[in-house]
């Protein structure tokens, strides 16, 4: 079984070559070459992993699957890994190429300021809304460049987490 994985825009194909209890042997193909890794991994039901690579132990955590992928916490930091079966990845060519035009927030809050109006040009990463949540003002950023096509909220609105607040198109 082969899987296609993405960390941001970096794509790599992962194949689990062998599995014996806690021992895992995998092959990772990237545009820059193929690597093989072998390590022990033990898991708890809440997502914790204890990994041992060449004798050196380390803690890791793998989050539940979400639309953006799975969060993996390691001692040195964290990444979000998107995983698809290789066949599914082929079928979905072109998906997500330009980045999502939907502007969303993960948490519920209140719109305190609309920074970009319908028709305004925006660049990727540009703050377009200010949402107050957890007693703090937070900038919500555009995830792609383009123009604001639809604005679903007004200043003062309460918004739920995950709701599309604005749509950015070409």
């Amino acid at each position, binding site marked *: 079984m082969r899987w296609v994985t993405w*960390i941001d825009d970096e794509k790599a194909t992962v194949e689990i070559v062998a599995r014996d209890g806690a021992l895992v042997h995998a092959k990772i193909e990237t545009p820059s070459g193929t690597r093989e890794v072998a390590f022990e991994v033990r898991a708890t039901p*809440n997502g914790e992993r204890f990994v041992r690579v060449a004798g050196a132990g380390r803690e890791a955590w793998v*989050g539940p699957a979400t639309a953006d992928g799975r969060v993996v916490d*390691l001692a*040195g930091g964290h990444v979000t890994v998107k995983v698809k079966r290789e066949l599914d990845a082929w079928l979905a060519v072109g998906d997500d190429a330009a980045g999502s035009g939907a502007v969303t927030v993960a948490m519920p809050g209140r719109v305190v300021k609309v920074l970009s109006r319908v028709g305004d040009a925006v660049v990727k990463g540009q703050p377009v809304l200010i949402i107050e949540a957890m007693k703090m003002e937070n900038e919500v950023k555009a995830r792609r460049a383009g123009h604001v096509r639809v604005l679903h909220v007004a200043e003062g609105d309460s918004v739920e987490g995950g709701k599309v607040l604005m749509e950015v198109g070409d």
Partner: protein
Amino acid sequence: MFRKILIANRGEIACRVIRACRALGIQTVAVYSEADAEALHTRMADEAYCIGPPPSRESYLVGSKILDVARQTGAEAIHPGYGFLSENAEFRKACDAAGVAFIGPSAEAMHLMGEKTLARRTVMAAGVPVVPGTADPIQSTDELVRVAREVGYPIMLKAAAGGGGKGMQIVHAEAELLAAFEGAQRVARSSFGDDSVYIEKAIVGPRHIEVQVMADSHGNTVYIGNRECSVQRRHQKVIEEAPAPSLAPETVKAMGEMACQAAAAVGYVNAGTIECLVDQHENFYFLEMNTRLQVEHCVTEEAFGVDLVRAQLIIASGGIIPWSQDELVPKKHAIELRLYAEDPAQGYQPSPGPLHVYRPPRGPGVRVDDGVVEGDTVSSLYDPMVAKLIVAADTRAAAIARAHAALREYAVHGIRTNLPLLDAILGAPAFVAGRYTTGLLAELAWQPEPLTDADKDLARVLAVLAEGAPQAKAPDVASKSTWAQDGLRRSLAGVV
């Protein structure tokens, strides 16, 4: 001493107060919003009652509901914790009217210290030094521009009804003034329901040092050293330590006496904190008084070997301060690290969510004050502070080393936290040297190290393993613990 106390708060501070009550044999009553029905503080208390919907303005901020619970349960006193109703003079008056003791200062003292411009006038009259600025809220943009010019840039805009740094904004030039003023008003209105803003001169390169005071109703007032609180983000404290490092003993004494003087000026009773700005020459200026227990009270407790909440309860029930000024010398160096549910790499964006894994560190000199357990959800409705890690040791260097070790052991997964940032701050040369200002965090400009290719490979494989094998029912490494298999194997082999 009281027999039963209601705790009008949630989270770690509610749990902290419940512990102090329990150690004194006092029964505890918790109150909670619908969002907190399963929260730790409701489980710890002897009794717990729901007081309304999740938003705090419909639950934790509704004094009448809380007083109803106090009356119905026969609670003789209310401990307000910090935040919520802790500095609300009207609530204090309502407690007096209902015949329920309020564990804190009088309504009059709260009022005098609560409105910042009034507080400035009051302490100035008592001879306490303050930062130059206006004594009254700004009424018009003309006045704004004029006063800002008089005081001289850079200036600081502050919410008159504010606290905890919310609504504060530094302005370097007149061009930024109007936009900053509107922003400060907006935050002041939404956070405190009052958009009054005033101006103070910004002290360049300041330290934020505060003095803990305790006063009883028999006329005794003591100071319990000081706390360095200069590690701040968005004017919110992140790391505090006691005692403040590299401060001349004469300054420590002068600040302590000034704090007692400020407290006495309003007839203060119970625990309070005098916040000061200290410049490079150790000139200090009164900033404000927090008329309640502080979040960071624990560093004082660990450094001086005292229990401030216990003392609060003794004083509120008519007792005297359980220590003399001479006894109050630091025995340890203590550092508090605030664990926030936020992503410091993304502009401190809040990160509420489920605590899939939560395992605080342990060991000598390590204390964790928290209000959550593994499996709880950190709500977006309340403050993003999840826990406080407090370490203490004989020397400051040993305390820093202990803090690094404890942070490494702290396992929190499911939300993003500032744990990596806390570790980076402890290692910053200015912090290690004990000579830093409120600019430390901005100067550090911390960004996470990019992951190595080996780490990314590992992450990819772990994510793939979690997706599971192709056969629908095959157990994958994510859901079936191989610990159990290993345990079985080991026990069969007789090696457990």
